[in-house]
Each structure stands twice: as structure tokens, then as C-alpha cells.
């Protein structure tokens, strides 16, 4: 019996971790390239959740019946619009502050976070919203007796597979394309890259768009899986994804995914075996402890301060 619970928590943790990893990518890429924590990133994820529900409702109104097609269309539309939000946030709140002191972009990010939360609260209402479940069913594994099994829903499979595909696509983009090479160059040395003809503003904008796109994938998947959301979900998801990014080593893409999975598993086991009420406290404590004892994370390189 314990074995089954363990396996079930592992499955849940892996699913949760994939979502954290997808959001963490946005934090880690932005931090790697301009060295700032994009506090508004969690709200981008929240926006994606709302867009998912709106597009899904719109498609239903138009009479679209097939769930796979609907999911694909919603995914494409949500990624596009969320990426536009990511781009606009960078353009409005961070680009004018590129050469100001260290504190200014952080405060501006908090401001954007407040704006996005209240904007959604005012336009969509403060209550919890939901979508009809369009992905039912699941598979039972290791079913030795009728009440001892590990249940994996189709939505969970979709989350892990989509997260994996998105990460591979992102990895391919960064490793193989010209823009990806420019990203890596800017990450290593922004001034040198711009001297060599890389349009750093465009690279930074691309990074925000990519980060927002990945957060959008997470938003669509989570909404399809859990079905309910409100205007405040970005806050907790944001801190946890940031924890994942730090855990994996901020600035490192594989680290973000690894950190996400580690955090997801840890949180899942904690809430399964210790206490559900304190699972957020556990995640935040983990963040504080990692930052104190191993700020470079699992796969990161220790940062050297330069003049």
C-alpha cells in the first residue's frame, strides 16, 4: 500500500514539477541575460490561465467540438497573446530602466505585478473562475487489488509530454539558431555582444517573449488539468517557480527544469506524508535555505562580483 502511495506522489510531483519548470525557465533566462528577477513573471502565467478559459469559451461558442483540436488552438492562441504581454512588459517597464540603479527595475517589476493583478481583477472579477473539464479519464497502473493502484490522468500525461516537447524546442532554439547564439552571447557579455553587432535590445525582448511563451504553456496545461483559477494564482506559482529556478541554479536552462522537478517531488512527498497545510511554508523555507546555503543551485556556477 505504501508503495502505491509513494508511486502516486511521485507521479503527482513529476507533473507539478514540470509546471514549475516551465515557469522557472522565464525567471532563469531573464536573470541570466539582464541579471534581474522578473517579479511580474508569475502574473504572466496567471494571464495565460485566463486567456485559456476565454479562448476555450470562445471556441465553444463558435461550435468547435473536438477536444484535441480545441486544445491545440487554445495553446497556440494563448502562447501568442501571452508572449505579447511579455514583450509589452519588457518594453514599458524594464527597457527604459536598463541603465538605472539596481533597485529601479525590481520596484518597477513589483509595480507591473500589481497592475496585472488588479487589471485582471477589475476586468474579469475577483471570484474564482473555472473551465469545463475537456480531458477526462486516465489509466491505472500496478493495479494489484481494486483499491491499490497508481492513477495517471490523461491531463497529467499531456502536461509532462508537452512540457518535455517545449523544453526540447527551447533547447533547440537556444543551441542551434542564430538568435539563440545571440542570446548566449548576450548572456556571457552584453557589452561585448553589442560591440560585435548583436542587437541586445532585440535579444532581451526575445528572451521575455520566450519566457512568457513557456509560462503560457504552463498556464494552459494547469488550467486544463485543475480547471479553476483566480487573479491571485500568479503570486504563489511565481515564488515557487523562482524557487525551482534557484534550486536548479539560476541562469541555467536544464537547471530550471531539474529544479522544477526536484521541488515538485519534494512538495508532493511533503504534502503526502507530512502535512498539506504547510506545503507552501515548506516550499518557501526550501527557497530561503537554498539561497542561504547553496545560492548557486544544483547546476549553476557561483557568481563572481565584478566592478
Amino acid at each position, binding site marked *: 500500500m505504501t508503495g502505491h502511495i509513494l508511486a502516486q506522489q511521485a507521479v503527482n510531483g513529476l507533473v507539478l514539477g514540470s509546471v514549475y519548470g516551465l515557469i522557472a525557465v522565464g525567471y532563469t533566462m531573464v536573470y541570466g541575460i539582464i541579471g534581474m528577477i522578473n517579479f511580474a513573471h508569475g502574473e504572466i502565467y496567471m494571464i495565460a490561465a485566463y486567456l485559456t478559459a476565454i479562448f476555450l469559451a470562445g471556441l465553444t461558442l463558435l461550435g468547435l467540438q473536438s477536444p484535441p483540436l480545441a486544445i491545440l488552438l487554445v495553446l497556440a492562441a494563448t502562447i501568442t*497573446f501571452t508572449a505579447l504581454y511579455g514583450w509589452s512588459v519588457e518594453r514599458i517597464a524594464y527597457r527604459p530602466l536598463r541603465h538605472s540603479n539596481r533597485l529601479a527595475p525590481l520596484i518597477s517589476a513589483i509595480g507591473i505585478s*500589481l497592475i*496585472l493583478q488588479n487589471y485582471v481583477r477589475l476586468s474579469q472579477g475577483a471570484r474564482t473562475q473555472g473551465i469545463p473539464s475537456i480531458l477526462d479519464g486516465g489509466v491505472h497502473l500496478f493495479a494489484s487489488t481494486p483499491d491499490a493502484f497508481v492513477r495517471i490522468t490523461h491531463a497529467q500525461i499531456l502536461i509532462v509530454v508537452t512540457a518535455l516537447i517545449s523544453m526540447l524546442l527551447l533547447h533547440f532554439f537556444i543551441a542551434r539558431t542564430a538568435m539563440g547564439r545571440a542570446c548566449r552571447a548576450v548572456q556571457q557579455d552584453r557589452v561585448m555582444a553589442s560591440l560585435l553587432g548583436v542587437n541586445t535590445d532585440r535579444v532581451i525582448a526575445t528572451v521575455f517573449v520566450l519566457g512568457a511563451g513557456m509560462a503560457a504553456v504552463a498556464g494552459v496545461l494547469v488550467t486544463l488539468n485543475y480547471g479553476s483559477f483566480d487573479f491571485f494564482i500568479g503570486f504563489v506559482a511565481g515564488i515557487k517557480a523562482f524557487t525551482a529556478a534557484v534550486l536548479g541554479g539560476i541562469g541555467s536552462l536544464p537547471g530550471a527544469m531539474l529544479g522544477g522537478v526536484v521541488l515538485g517531488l519534494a512538495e508532493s512527498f511533503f504534502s503526502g506524508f507530512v502535512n498539506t497545510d504547510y506545503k507552501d511554508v515548506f516550499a518557501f523555507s526550501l527557497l530561503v535555505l537554498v539561497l542561504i546555503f547553496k545560492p548557486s543551485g544544483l547546476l549553476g556556477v557561483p557568481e563572481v562580483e565584478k566592478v
Partner: protein
Amino acid sequence: MSATKETLLTGLVAFLLFAPLTGVSLDGYGLNPHWQNPFLLAGMAMLGRLLLVRLQGLRLPVGLAGYDWQTRLQRPILAVVVIAALIFPWLVGKYWLNVATLALIYVLLALGLNIVVGLAGLLDLGFVAFYAVGAYFYALTFKYLDLSFWIALPGGALLAGLCGMLLGFPVLRMHGDYLAIVTLGFGEIVRLVLNNWIDFTNGPNGVRAPFPSFFGLDFSRHPMPGKSSFHQFFHLSYSPIHKDIFLFILLFFIVCGMVYFVRRLRRMPLGRAWEALREDEIACRALGINHVTVKLSAFGIGAMTGGIGGAFFAASQGFVNPTSFTFMESAHILAIVVLGGMGSTAGVIAAAVILTFLPEALRDFAEYRGLMFGCAMVMMMIWRPRGLLRSRRALFQREQSAC
């Protein structure tokens, strides 16, 4: 790019941004259309962009900024403010007096956060945690140990300061931005523990906090047998507003003390070290300033102020529960500090008072408070990062006769 083209592009992007989220609203599993919203908002964005392009290069008149009002008018302004604050409670009713007390609590909190963010340049997003420590320390020590306000006030301040030091010590050694996120996490941990530890803190139901006494005299109409109450001792007729006036004036003196304290600190080597560290940490370390202890002192003093504010909050509300200590509260205090101009004491006080009274006066705008705070924070950072009232550095005055 020409202004027209840029404006049109802004309009297009704004329309695309606003269309799905404001053009329709979710209603169950269906949608309610509001077609006019996205067009209206996109039009506003275009107008804003056009104005921005047109107004570029325009500067505010220098005359106002150049006038040395801070030294010339300092004493008269200070005198007027103090006298007005002391007369104020006798003229208004209970409601506005309570708003004013809340404003003073925010002044105190903002002064504390201003030391951390404005002077030392450390972004603390969990300031509300120390506020909660002060408030709960008073409420819980009263509940379990029956301690009075006058013991809980310094006790809560010390505990909050200690928490700040314990949290800050390991974190302040590393990269500055991490501090923001660690404090954010810490603030949430404190709130969640207060919310979930039901046996000890009574969870979301909160804890009662009694009203402080006036040198052992309480403010009840009918005191306990054998004790005398405030109005009996001074042979006044009983009025429920006495205790509110008392709390306001007490808090006012504490705020004045705090202002004086901060003012003196800024001129001390410690205060100068804070500001120097904010400007260039590496240079300071090269000059032999111990950056950890200097930052830690700022963090600890800020946290202590938060604790004092918390104890007063508990006393004035008579009750504390975890919903008063959310991240929104931290963001509110931070917005006060940012709008007042980081590092400027006068600006921060003005911002705290205005931002507390304004939402009360304009009840209809209460809905838009968060949105406006957010916009104001972004705009301040872009155009006026040092605040609306620029704080002037205390300079060494060269003697006139020397040359």
C-alpha cells in the same frame, strides 16, 4: 520611426493586449461581451504615447526644484505640522481620528522601510512580517502571559529586530536581489504559520489585543472594582474618544522620536555608510566598511520599527488576524516609500499621510487603488526614481570666510 507610425503601432499592440481580457468577461463557462472596452483602452494608450513623444525633452521649471525650501522653510513647516497634529484630534470625530492613527502607523512603517530600502538600498518585500511579529507579540503575550502594552511594545520591537537580524545575517552576504526574494518568502512563511498554527494563534479567527493603559489607568467607563479609570482620576465626564486621542498623541510622539532618530542616524558614520553602500558596494568594501554589519544594522532597525508599528496596529484595532499581513500590505508600504522618494524623510511622511487619507476620502476609487499604486510605482521609477521631492544630501558646509 515617425510619431504617427509609433502611435499607430502602440494602438495596435494595446488593442491586441486588451481585446481578449477586457473585450469579454468570463461568465461561468460562457462569455459576456464588452466591445467598447478594448477600443477605449487602445485609444487611451495611443493618446498617451502621442503625448509622450510630443513632450519629450520638455523639462519641469527649474525654479521650483532649485529653491532651497528645505533649509529655509524647515522650522516654520515643522512647527505648523506639529501644532496642527496636536490640535487635530480635538476637532474631528472618532472615524477620522482612527484614519489618522492608521496614517501615523503607516508613517512609522514607511520610515522603517525607508531606512532599509531608501537609505541602505536593500529591497525588503517581506516587511509586513516584522509588522506581524510586533502585532502578534502583543496580542499573544497578553493572551498567554497577561503582559501589558508597555512591556509588549519594546518586547515586540526587540523580537522583530532579532528576527530581522537572524534572517538578514546569512542573506546579506550575497547578491542584493536575492534579499528581495528571501524576504518575500519569509513574509509569506510568517503569514502562513500564523494562519495554520491554530492551537497557538487561533488561526484565521485572530487574537484579541486590549487597549493600552494610561500609566495604569484604563479607559473603560466602569473600571474593575478597586481600580480607577482615566475619566474618574482626572474628574472628566466619560467619553469614548479619550482613548483614541490618547493613542493618536502617543503615536505622534513616537513618530516624532523616530523622525529625530533617523535624522541623527543619517549624519552619523553609520548612516553615511548605509548611503555609501547603496551607491557602490565594492568601493565601500575596498575602503574597509564591513558591509554585512552595516546592512544588518539597517535591516534590524527597519524591522524594529515595523515591530513597533505592529504593536500599535494591534492596540488600535483591538484585534489581529493574518489577513492584515498579506503581501499586498508589504507592497502598500513599499509604494509609500517609492512615491515619497526613497531616502527622503519628509516625502515619505507626506506620501504615507496622503495615501492613507486619499482612499478614505475617495471611496469610489478604492477599487482602483492597487492599479494606481502599480502605475505610480512604474512611472516613478522611469521618470522620478529619486521621488517627487528630491532628498538633498547633507553636505559639508565650507566656511564662507575661508576663501
